[in-house]
């Protein structure tokens, strides 16, 4: 491979086509290229975006390498247009010490397909009682800034208050998985008319909304940064909208699957649709889409959650929660939000790259494509389309609910630190 890479005739965020030259990991030229010794990618009709950053990824390593590894997860991320992922802490052992987050960071760096930013556990063993080694993780080589017990809610209000206060000293953020545990014991799916008919134990919206409300008030009181993971309900959206109107420091994410699917899919009893938090109603989907457009919800995060076949090939109640999402995220967001004209390329860049990088304090990421900036670039084809095939995923797991579905918008190429980590067809 030659040392220089050229994206020929690419539109940056929908603007008039230009050539983008990349050298030594940086954007070296934007305009009319003249390099003769370069690897040239013809990007006519394609759009270049700041490289995607996922703030919510389950890479499963260490401990559950039968469903995903940092290597397979990195490859899936690159195929999905991602240049950075945030490895959730619910591994075995839990990422609650400096040693583990450094190990995850190192493995990710050695693979070199994406930046792997470990997320530290808020509490030891995700048990919700004692704070984990938050400070050690923050000052480790992994420089952890995002802390989350995701999979579990930090349900104890005192623990939550202390965690919010404690991470202020290094500008950290608590990413809360909002799920009141008593209201969701053995819960299987959104509580509503579908759960009533299917006889599956309901998961009330208020179990999510009550924690969001509580934590917003707590974070505001101690002036700390709070991030709400995977918002799924209209009520949650309205609480966050209110908080932002008051100037409170809260950010929020939505997953691609919650932008598209509803609890009606559970009528098949196929646990491929079983996910935590659960799929909600069409009214909630509409509220989430509007919130992502008006800025109430800041980012799209995948909550990529790989599971082996046997954990899904069983009864709904016995199946694992979660779905893979890295490789389909862009196409779903494009199809649901951008293709209709509702969302601009600028807003797409913000929700997929700039805002998540800012929340995670990932300094080298989420930057506008300018000369001298790190070459983290995602190239997409708005005229292209994908048909999801679970057997062709780079992820080690197959648990996508989108198998066989067709979406408009396709990731064409991913450039991480100036290196081509994915090119369609290769």
């Amino acid at each position, binding site marked *: 491979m030659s040392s220089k890479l050229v994206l020929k005739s690419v539109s940056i965020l929908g603007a008039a086509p230009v050539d983008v030259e990349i050298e030594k990991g940086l954007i070296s030229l934007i305009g009319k290229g003249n390099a003769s010794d370069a690897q040239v990618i013809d990007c006519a009709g394609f759009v270049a975006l700041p490289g995607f950053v996922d703030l919510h990824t389950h890479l499963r390593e260490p401990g559950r390498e039968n469903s995903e590894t940092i290597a397979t997860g990195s490859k899936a991320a690159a195929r999905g247009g991602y240049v950075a992922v945030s490895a959730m802490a619910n591994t075995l052992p839990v990422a609650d010490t400096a040693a583990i987050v450094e190990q995850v960071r190192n493995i990710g760096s050695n693979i070199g397909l994406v930046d792997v930013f470990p997320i530290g556990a808020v509490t030891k063993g995700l048990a919700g009682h004692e704070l984990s080694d938050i400070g050690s993780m923050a000052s480790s080589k992994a420089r952890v800034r995002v802390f989350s017990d995701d999979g579990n809610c930090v349900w104890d209000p005192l623990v939550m208050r202390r965690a919010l206060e404690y991470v202020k000293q290094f500008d950290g953020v608590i990413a809360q998985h909002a799920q009141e545990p008593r209201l969701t014991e053995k819960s299987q799916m959104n509580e509503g008319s579908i759960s009533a008919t299917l*006889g599956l134990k309901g998961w009330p919206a208020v179990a999510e909304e009550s924690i969001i409300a509580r934590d917003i008030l707590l974070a505001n009181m101690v002036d700390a940064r709070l991030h709400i993971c995977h918002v799924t309900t209209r009520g949650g959206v309205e609480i966050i909208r209110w908080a932002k109107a008051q100037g409170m420091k809260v950010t929020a994410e939505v997953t691609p699957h919650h932008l598209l699917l509803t609890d009606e899919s559970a009528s098949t009893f196929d646990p491929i649709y079983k996910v935590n938090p659960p799929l909600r109603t069409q009214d909630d989907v509409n509220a989430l889409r509007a919130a992502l457009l008006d800025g109430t919800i800041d980012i799209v995060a995948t909550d990529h959650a790989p599971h082996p076949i046997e954990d899904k090939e069983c*009864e709904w109640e016995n199946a694992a929660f979660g779905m893979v999402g890295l490789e389909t995220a862009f196409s779903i967001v494009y199809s649901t939000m951008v293709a209709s004209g509702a969302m601009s390329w600028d807003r797409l860049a913000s929700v997929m790259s700039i805002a998540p990088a800012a929340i995670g304090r990932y300094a080298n990421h989420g930057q506008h494509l300018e000369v001298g900036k790190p070459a983290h670039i995602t190239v997409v084809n708005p005229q292209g389309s994908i048909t999801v095939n679970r057997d062709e995923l780079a992820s080690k797991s197959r648990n996508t609910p989108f198998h066989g579905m067709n979406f408009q918008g396709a990731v064409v190429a991913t450039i991480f630190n100036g290196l081509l980590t994915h090119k369609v067809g290769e």
Partner: protein
Amino acid sequence: MRHLLSISDLSRDFALEILSTAHELSRVSENGTKKLPTLRGKTVVNLFAEDSTRTRISFEAAAKRLSADVINFSAKGSSVSKGESLKDTAQTLQALGADAVILRHPASGAAHRLAQGRWISGSVINAGDGTHEHPSQALLDAFTIQRHLCDSKGDLAGLHIAIVGDILHSRVARSNILLLKKLGATVTLVAPPTLIPFAWQSWGVEVSHDLDAVLPTVDAVIMLRIQKERMSDLYFPSSREYSALFGINAERASLMKSHALVMHPGPMNRGLEITAEVADSSASVVVEQVANGVSVRMAILYLFIAGNQED
């Protein structure tokens, strides 16, 4: 149709065909015929991953009266009831050449999974899945109501049926609501608000919390079994209070119309949701429900299994 998974899969006409077939089969039985050659050479597996002696015996009697070979596979406590190997079990049954699997399972949707997993080629008959559905129970309840209150070929239009008790956790209630409405009856659910599903409004039923007010208007009342452990889950304060508000006793039964039926899917908690006096009264058709269960299950086996062979 190959599988009986949910009442919602049945058309009104097919539901009525099951009932009229059951009607003919019960007459054949009453004529003294104990055994018919209809399913000779067919293998029916009773796969029960949860205890239910009465449903298993009922299906077994039905299958044997139609000359099917019956294999009982009681899987409680094994890996099947934990759900780890529904697929493995299904493949075993396939290897045994099962033409039909009667499945009772603690997980809602288990019968759907078994049918849709493409692991077996035979019919799947849902004999109760978690808190989802129990279609054969609803069919035998409708059959019992039809025998007493309607023309044997007709539907249940104009009748008012109350279902009383733990609707939230009852597969019998879910199947009954779907079937009774499909057959034209009006349905009222009677229970404390804690035992009515949130979002029941989509069901097209009435809900009441006053049993005394509802009883004089009904043609039949279906009493559901109340699990004592619901008390510890805060659904109601005490069994004494539950009985006082939602149990049926002789005094309450006297509020009903003279032709009205008292039904119960069994097993009954005598003294909790129903007193012994009412259970053994002339209005009670509980024992008849059991007998009708065999006829209805014969009709189900005949209509779903006979001729359902790929050769």
